[in-house]
Structures are given as structure tokens and as C-alpha cells.
């Protein structure tokens, strides 16, 4: 962890209120190996309520491995992921029983995939997609499910008359927005995003980023965003972690890291961006 500088406390906003009490997510010594190769090694950080953290790095640097370990999709070989649950306080989600981890996965956590096809049910209508998490946590009133599906489609700027269309009839940007609605409907506190703007053209990207920024700020969400797009983290993230070869090489406040990169790789990364 060279180049550890800023502390999240400076990033203003929601960190002023009560969030100093306890971090939402504490990661300690998280390691995942694929045989002899390292997926991610000895990653440690704290995420505070309302904070958005970006993880950047080139392809194969272990960003997605790290995210999947955090979200419980992959079992790490070592380390702890301690999440501050609503009712029981800090819990190590790595050793949490599978039913409880799944319950977290459909209540307090959300996971936005890079490819909406991975996160959506393509054969199910938009309304059903949004309603699934509600039904999974016990909603049994069709009218109420439908109302909140409509509400969420509105929030992600999908017209109400598309509620009974399948995602296959949606454009890529709409699919991604639908995926976000489907994930946020249960009011999660922590959102994992894997390249949420990947594969979208720039104008659609801009709208999506705008939307995400609005949702994150309004709902006070904490988020961990994996991306290789520095513009995305500049817009969304309070704090930044730079990964290379499975290791975190630099971390700090987003603007600090991007404007004054210390590690050679970060300098390369920042200078690789075309200035227009």
C-alpha cells in the first residue's frame, strides 16, 4: 500500500454526519489465488457510509476478482470482509452462512454487472425484473409490487408504458438502467458496480453517470465501482484505489490520485487518457 494518503474524512458530504461512528465495510488482508497466479493480494480498506470508492486498473489487474470476493460471489482464500449489518452490527461476510449471505445479497447489497444480460432476466418483463427482489424478500401484493416497479422505472427514466416489455426489446443503455432499478428497489446500503458504463456510447454513458450520481447522492448509498474509465471515477468516486497485478499500488482521494499520481503505474494510467 504505497502512496496511502488522503483519508475519506476530507471528502465532505455525508461523512460529516454520524458516519464517523463506524465504517460500513472493513476489508482486511483479502487474498484470492487462482492456483499459482494471484487474483488479488492482501487488499485492505475501509468504506464509510455514503462513500463511493473507485477501483481502477488495467485488464487482468484483479479488479473484478476483488469485487466478486467482496460481494460474496467468489470465496477468498484469506482475509475478512466485515459488513456493518442493520440488526447485528459488524459481521464477517466471508464466514457468514450461505443463506444469510444471500439474504444480504438481495436486501442490503446490490450488484450491477457490466453486461446487463448477466444481471437481468431477459425472458421476464421489466416489471418482473424490478419486482423480483421484492418478491424474494416476501412481497406478495401484486398491486404494491407493480406500483414500486413503476416508481423505479420512472426514477431510472424508463417510460411507464415499457413496464410489460422484456429487456430484449430495450437498448443497451435502457437495459443498464433497468438493471440499476432492479438492484436498488429494496433500498440497499452498499452497491457493487462492475464497469457499469462499459459497452455504452459516450452520450448514453453521460446520462447513466448523471443518473447514478443522482441516485447515489439522494439515497446516501455507499458504492464500490470497478472501472478502467478514469472519467467515471472522477465523476462518481470520493476515493480511489489503483490496482496492478493483483496488488493495490496507490489509494487516496480521487482528485489527489488523479492530479498528483505518485506510483509509476498510476502516472502511466493518468497520462494514457486522451485529453480533449
Amino acid at each position, binding site marked *: 500500500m504505497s502512496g496511502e494518503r488522503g483519508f475519506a474524512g476530507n471528502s465532505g458530504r455525508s461523512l460529516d454526519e454520524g458516519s464517523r461512528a463506524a465504517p460500513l465495510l472493513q476489508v482486511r488482508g483479502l487474498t484470492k489465488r487462482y492456483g499459482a497466479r494471484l487474483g488479488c493480494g492482501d487488499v485492505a480498506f475501509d468504506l464509510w457510509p455514503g462513500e463511493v470508492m473507485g477501483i481502477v486498473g488495467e485488464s487482468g489487474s484483479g479488479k473484478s476478482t476483488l469485487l466478486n470476493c467482496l460481494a460474496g460471489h467468489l470465496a477468498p482464500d484469506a482475509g475478512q470482509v466485515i459488513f456493518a449489518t442493520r440488526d447485528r452490527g459488524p459481521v464477517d461476510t466471508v464466514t457468514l452462512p450461505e443463506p444469510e449471505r*444471500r439474504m444480504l445479497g*438481495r436486501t442490503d447489497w446490490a450488484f450491477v454487472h457490466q453486461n446487463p444480460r448477466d444481471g437481468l432476466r431477459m425472458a421476464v418483463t421489466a416489471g418482473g425484473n424490478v419486482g423480483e427482489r421484492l*418478491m*424474494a424478500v416476501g412481497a*406478495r401484493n*401484486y398491486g404494491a409490487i407493480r406500483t414500486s416497479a413503476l416508481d423505479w422505472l420512472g426514477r431510472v427514466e424508463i417510460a411507464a408504458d415499457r413496464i*410489460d416489455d422484456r429487456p430484449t426489446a430495450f437498448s443497451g443503455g435502457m437495459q443498464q438502467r433497468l438493471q440499476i432499478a432492479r438492484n436498488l428497489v429494496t433500498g440497499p446500503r452498499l452497491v457493487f458496480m462492475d464497469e457499469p458504463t462499459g459497452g455504452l456510447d459516450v452520450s448514453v454513458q453521460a446520462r447513466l453517470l448523471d443518473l447514478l450520481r443522482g441516485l447515489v447522492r439522494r439515497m446516501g448509498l455507499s458504492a464500490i465501482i470497478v472501472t478502467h474509465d478514469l472519467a467515471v471515477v472522477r465523476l462518481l468516486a470520493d476515493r480511489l484505489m489503483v490496482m496492478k497485478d493483483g496488488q493495490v499500488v496507490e489509494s487516496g482521494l480521487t482528485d489527489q490520485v488523479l492530479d498528483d499520481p505518485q506510483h509509476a503505474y498510476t502516472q502511466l494510467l493518468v497520462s494514457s487518457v486522451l485529453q480533449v
Partner: protein
Amino acid sequence: MTDYNFAYLDEQTKRMIRRALLKAVAIPGYQVPFASREMPMPYGWGTGGVQVTAACLTPEDVLKVIDQGADDTTNAVSIRAFFQRTAGVATTTQTGAASIIQTRHRIPEHPLTEGQILVYQVPIPEPLRFLEPRETETRKMHALEDYGLMHVKLYEDIARHGAIATAYAYPVKVEGRYVMDPSPIPKFDNPKLSDCPALQLFGAGREQRIYALPPWTRVVSLDFEDFPFEPSKAQHDCALCGAAGSYLDEVIVDDAGGRMFVCSDTDYCATRQAAGHRVTEAAS
């Protein structure tokens, strides 16, 4: 009968199936894997049901076989003949007189009693199959009671058709735990699954699964608060026996679009007709 062991299957196979049955009865609604055998009939013709029946049959049993409610269709006739030849057991078409009833797609109208065994033929035992194709995942969903997806299917029905359009193989929850496919019986029959005095066994031969409902098990059809479960049938009386409360088959009677509705349960209809319930030509 010397050519075959009693009821066709060898004793070791029956023992294996009985073990699976015991486990299935112990965990109502849970799908127990079993080593399904090749049977002298194609998959889809009731190989699972036949194996379960074979494992349950004793020489004293009286067997009834129904196919879509009828005792006289191909499937019913051939399975009944199969056990007459290989087990030499008595057979009947009367629901009340049978000790084992193998059925496809129906539960008899005549109320079942304690001591009877109802054996269902099941094509696809996994209620989540068409929603989640991975078997590893569906097993995990059952283990974790992760059944939100089942309601997504019902939601889709309402969104698309304005009502729950699933008319057969309507998913049920057993004793508040396992979601179960009741085999392709019409949803009209679903209420009969619950608190049934008879033992209900389900055999899926191709999919190699056995599950069961012990007598007096609570079985609830899934639904929404504002779209409750409704058993449905054709809005007619039987054209032969006049029964108003039985499940009806629609029969096309001529090339001019003429049709009649008759009881799908032939034994029930015949018994009622014998008891004098007849619809006269003039009345129909």
C-alpha cells in the same frame, strides 16, 4: 408368473426405491434422487410412476390406473395390463375399491381414504426448471428457500394475461417449506392435494426423482394477496351425468364445431350415471 419377478422390478431395485420413498415421506415435498431403471416403455409414458407402483405393490393390492381421469385410454390400459401380467394383482376402475391408484394428470373426484396410495407420473419434477435452467442452482434455491423466482412467474402471468394463467402444474408450497410441482394436474385439483387422507407419491423416471406428500399434509397453492389462487374448470355441467362440481373435458363431436363437456373422471361419471344421474337428450 415365473418369467418376471413380482411386479417386474427385481427386489434390490424395489428396495432402493422404497428407501427413496421413505426419505421422500420424511421430508414432504423434497425431491429425492433415485436410480431410475429402464422400463419396457418409453420415457414420458409413466416410467417413474410405474417404478413407484411396482415398489409399493403387494399381492393383496387392488390397482387402478388413470390417464387424464380416464380408465380406458391407451396409457391406463397398457399400464394396468402390465401389472396384471407381471404382478397378477387384482385391478379395478372404482376409485373407492382401489388400494393403489397410479394416475396421470388427475386426482380422482371420489374422495380418497386413509390407507390408499396415489401414485403420480411426473414429467418434470422441478417447479423452478423453466425459470432457472441450472440444476445446481435450483437445488441451492430449494435448500435456501430462495423462492422469489416462483412468484416472478406468477407476476408475469398477471402482467401479460391479467390473471394467473397457469392452469396446470400450478406450484404449491408444502408445509410452509418446499415449493413443489404437483405434476401436470389441473389447478382445479390442487385443493385436493392438501390434507388428503391418502399417501401421495410422485415418481419422475427420466429425471430420476421421487417426492411425496404424507397423509394430512398442508399444501398451499402460491398466489398474491390481490390475485388469490382460484381453482378453475369449464363453466358447464357434465353432458352425461349432469355433475356440476367435477372437472370437465371438452369433446369435439362433429365437424361443425359442436362440442360437449363431460367428466374427465370416467369412473365418477359412470358411477353417477348408474345411480340414475342422467342428462336426457332433450335436456342437453
